[in-house]
């Protein structure tokens, strides 16, 4: 799968957050995340429903169900490796 990535601007300490525009519809992507071992939670109570997924190892993915932009947070101590692994997985989809 092709994707675009940009480091998210924010004002937090040691933040390693990136935004990705992906080419998959939300439900398909959530299924793929679950298949990849992620714990996925959906929040239908908000005006625009959201999801949060946590991969083993601490990578955190979140976004709106109805949008193809996701936000991914990597652990500051392992950000480079986690980012490379996640993007490799995205590319393989």
């Amino acid at each position, binding site marked *: 799968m092709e994707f675009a990535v940009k480091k998210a601007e924010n004002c937090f300490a040691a933040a390693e957050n990136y935004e990705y525009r992906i080419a998959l519809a939300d439900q398909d992507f959530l299924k793929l995340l679950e298949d990849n071992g992620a714990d996925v*939670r959906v929040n239908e109570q908000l005006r625009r429903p959201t999801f949060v997924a946590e991969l083993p190892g601490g990578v955190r993915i979140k976004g709106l169900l109805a949008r193809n932009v996701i936000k991914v947070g990597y652990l500051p101590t392992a950000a480079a490796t986690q980012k490379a692994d996640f993007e490799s997985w995205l590319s393989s989809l």
Partner: protein
Amino acid sequence: MEQYIYLNNAATSWPKPPAVAAASAQALAGLPGAAMRGGIEDFDVMAAVRLELAELFGLKNPARLALGANSTWALNLAIFGLGLKPGDTVLSTKAEHNSVLRPLFALEQQGLRVCYLDTDCNGRIAVADWQQALQKLEPRLAVFTHASNVTGAVNDAAELAKAAHDCGAMTILDASQTAGWCPVKLEEWAIDMAAFTGHKYLLGPQGTGGLYVREGLELTPHLLGGTGIHSDMHTMPPEMPTHLEAGTGNEPGFYGLLAALEWARENPVTAEWQRVDTGLERLKNHLLDIGATVLDGTVGDTGNAVSAAATKADGATKADGARAAGGAGTGAAGTVSPPGHMPVLSFVLRGISPQDSGDALRDSYDIIVRTGLHCAPHIFSCLGLDPSSGSVRVSLSRFTSQADIDQLMAALSDIATTADAF
């Protein structure tokens, strides 16, 4: 396009008065100011802005105002322009923005000693602590913010400056947050230097701001270049404001700032204080009701005893029954007294990180707030918050409606009740 509710005015105010964009656009469409080499018949927008600001800040001589890009520009000019030397001591506070902290850190690398005073738990500088530190350290310079950009607590700038002078220190006031919302009276308060920016509560465009330098104080400029006058000199001309204004200025931006200043003179902010304060109190009470930790400058606001009785104090009472809340209000004679806090508060929802709260407000509700450390990383240790996660900051403006507050409160209720899903 989504209709955003914008509550990040402590970073950059929005919307602006309509005349601001029109003035900047008109300036861009017209001849540049230097086209006629500043003849007597030409309109000098920088001089007009200086006149407006001198009136606002209570200055006799507008030429003591150097105009530039923003407060960061001004603070760097002031801090590095004083000629401080290794061994000198500077007193500052943990409430400061990185535009103060980073220049001071650079001075520390050069061998200066810098002490950062704790604030109280509301983000306010306690005058007694300040006096004690001044007496102990005998600093050459004291740098302090007029208001915390995290909690909105406004400091007693006059008392802090007096205490500094009593101990022989010069003062730099960072009025980035307060200019345009609270009274800023630089000569009356005997401030030596003050930084301000046009794009916050002065309601002007980004890229406008300036530095006040009192009569008799000459800074060494560290930005050198063309001035349009004395071009044969190897150094910057000695007269203010040219001494500190190298290079072509942001003329379209200053046309916008002039329009904002004229609009604000016709539409005084004093008429908005109580209405906006009511919204802030409603929001604070709601946050407390849904179990949030709230940090704001209304608690411990003693700068305005007359108005305190005219303002609801319920929220603060819930937060801490021993503390009183002050606010803008109408005194017995009908005069409006200024608030001792900005229309700003920070909060953390129980069980939800500030980042997730802010993302949910923006992505699911089109409400724009600011999350993180707010470029003031040291204050969090004084507020009892985790510096690694920061806070959500809401900053209102005179254009914030009660309906905006209602929508924010409804969204916060939705988010707070679904903490498990974050």
